[in-house]
């Protein structure tokens, strides 16, 4: 093994999960990558560890690699750093966290794992999911204490059995900007407009560097000039998902045409993932592409409505405007909700009163949502029905039924989680409502990696010199990723990949 990750460590990692197919085949096949073209006779630049991507995973990897003593280079193809993470909502799933303790909420890594497996339809790679749940709290504390990111409250996301996500002030940009600042303090410069073109593999089958376009402008494939960057120890791929790569997502899920908007930034495309596939990496779950059921057709991108909708589920009902009735467990996972909305075929309505809204939703979300018209305000429920064409009698009866469930704290129809402090809809008018139509949000699929962050090849073996972390990897979430678990995944495995990359023995 050319890696310093010892066999003992590796097997220990395997034993943690136990269920991965890798264990059965560690003795077969070759630890090498496929050739991708010539190795340059002269490198333009070099570093011990080259990190590609500047979201949560990439920056976490860069910081850990640097702190482990490696010379680090961080590149990003976009003009600005932060990838999708900088527009992330800012929720970090951390079981047993400080807010839960304050509020007396019992939680554990085991319970989080159970939730992940349930939502993931047990397709999750359990060994990695287990590492994630065990290290998520430590990673959140690292973000809070070492990086200095400011969290301010506990939030709930559908599919979790308890509120367990800690939320950053200013969303994901808080953590990204504090990590960028930390990297600056550590003397690492983030190099934007540098796009990975090819992973370079030497004769021994080790990834030894990258071919990149320097001065690249997103969308102009002829821009910039070719440079070769040597990675003496390893390359870490942290290039995110492919939600905005319409051609690629339609290969895996042909329903996801350009008619579906995405919550992602424009750079969420899949060429870096494919660069790894070209050298023999293995992929998994590529057709499990998550749609956000809380998105609005009345605003672009992620917008304000998700921050309203996700905060009032469990306090307020979602209504099918055709029937006037509820149709799904509002606190269920993203997949069941998105599928149910698509089956209805028209945008559905979430409606909450002032009590539920003011108790849960930041004031600026409502203010801005109202300003652009994605959220609307009504004095009565009858006006809500009129605006969205909901049959009034059926709607009125359904609200009465919902209110009974709220009083009893038990939803007999869909088993929605009803929060302790929830009050019947109409307790305090006026009402706030929004239309919901799913948007492409997260690609669960990606590169197969082991618990050490190493990319696995088609012979079930780690590719020497290649690590990956974050949304570019697949398997950990199974069929459905729960809210707040992406950031946890990125930070936990970004750190692991960075540390292990720095511990590699340089190529001969």
């Amino acid at each position, binding site marked *: 093994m050319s890696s310093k990750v010892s066999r003992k460590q590796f097997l220990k990692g395997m034993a943690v999960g136990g269920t991965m197919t890798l264990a059965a085949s560690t003795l077969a096949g070759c630890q090498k990558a496929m050739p991708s073209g010539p190795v340059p006779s002269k490198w333009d630049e070099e570093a011990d560890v080259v990190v590609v991507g500047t979201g949560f995973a990439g920056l976490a990897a860069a910081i850990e690699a640097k702190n482990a003593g490696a010379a680090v280079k961080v590149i990003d193809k976009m*003009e*600005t*750093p*932060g990838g999708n993470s*900088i*527009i992330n909502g800012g929720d970090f799933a951390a079981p047993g966290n400080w807010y839960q303790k304050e509020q007396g909420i019992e939680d554990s890594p085991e319970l989080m794992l159970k939730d992940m497996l349930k939502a993931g339809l047990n397709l999750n790679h359990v060994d990695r999911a287990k590492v994630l749940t065990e290290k998520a709290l430590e990673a959140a504390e690292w973000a809070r204490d070492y990086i200095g990111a400011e969290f301010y409250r506990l939030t709930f996301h559908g599919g979790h059995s308890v509120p367990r996500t800690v939320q950053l002030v*200013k*969303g994901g*940009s808080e953590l*990204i*900007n504090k990590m960028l600042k930390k990297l600056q303090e550590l003397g690492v410069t983030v190099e934007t407009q540098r796009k990975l073109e090819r992973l370079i593999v030497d004769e021994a089958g080790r990834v030894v560097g990258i071919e990149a376009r320097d001065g690249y402008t997103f969308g102009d494939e002829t821009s910039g000039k070719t440079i070769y960057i040597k990675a003496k120890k390893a390359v870490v791929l942290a290039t995110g998902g492919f939600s905005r790569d319409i051609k690629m997502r339609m290969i895996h899920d042909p329903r996801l045409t350009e008619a579906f908007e995405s919550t992602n*930034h*424009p750079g969420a495309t899949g060429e870096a993932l494919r660069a790894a596939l070209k050298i023999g990496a293995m992929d998994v779950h590529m057709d499990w592409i998550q749609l956000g059921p809380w998105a609005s057709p009345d*605003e*672009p*991108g*992620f*917008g304000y409505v998700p921050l309203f909708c996700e905060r009032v589920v469990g306090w307020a009902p979602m209504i099918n405007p055709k029937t006037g009735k509820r149709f799904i467990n509002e606190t269920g996972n993203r997949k069941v909700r998105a599928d149910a909305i698509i089956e209805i075929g028209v945008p559905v309505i979430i409606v909450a009163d002032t009590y539920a809204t003011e108790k849960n939703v930041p004031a600026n979300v409502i203010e*801005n949502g109202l*300003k*652009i018209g*994605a959220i609307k305000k009504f004095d009565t429920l009858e006006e809500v029905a009129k605006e969205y064409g909901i049959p009034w009698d059926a709607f009125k009866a359904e609200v009465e039924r919902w209110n009974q469930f709220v009083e009893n704290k038990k939803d007999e129809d869909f088993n929605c989680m009803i929060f302790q402090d929830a009050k019947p809809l109409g307790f305090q008018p006026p009402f706030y409502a929004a239309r919901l139509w799913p948007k492409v949000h997260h690609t669960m699929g990606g590169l197969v990696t082991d618990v050490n962050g190493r990319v696995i090849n088609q012979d079930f073996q780690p590719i020497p010199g290649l690590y990956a972390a974050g949304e570019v990897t697949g398997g950990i979430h199974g069929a459905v990723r729960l809210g707040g678990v992406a950031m946890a995944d990125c930070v936990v495995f970004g750190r692991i990949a960075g540390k292990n990359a720095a511990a590699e023995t340089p190529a001969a």
Partner: protein
Amino acid sequence: MNAPTTPPSPKGLKGFIARRGIACTIVIALFILLVAANAVYALWEASYNPSFCSLCHIIRPYVDSYHTSEYLDNIHQQANVGCKDCHVTTPIGALQEVAAYVTGNYENPLKERKIGTDVCLKCHRSYESLAERTAHLNRNPHESHWPNLRCTVCHKSHRPAENYCAQCHQD
């Protein structure tokens, strides 16, 4: 029948010095140098005038745009800001440009330059002062999650501005 030989008078600088004397030579050399320096200086000064830049056929379209467009270049023209106030260069840089021209090592149309924020802030004071001016907007582009977003990511001089934020956010 040999012609009488006269010693050949030394040619070149040596001869010149021999004929005129060292002091005179130095005075003349200094004079020439002064004229040349003045000419270079005048040229350098003249290069601040946009019409100087438009002498070059590759740059001319940009200067035309500067005089007539609806873009930032024309706004800067109205404020009496010249090409070289943004396209900051040094005499060596200018020589390199001449060399690039002579050797044909340039693009046409020219590659869009990425002017640094520091150049803009020579006149536009500070990011904070700009943020104050756009504080009325729903999302303040000068107070975004990119604290040091380069101005030219959105503000283009010779073509319409691009709303970079709108790639993900509604105004």
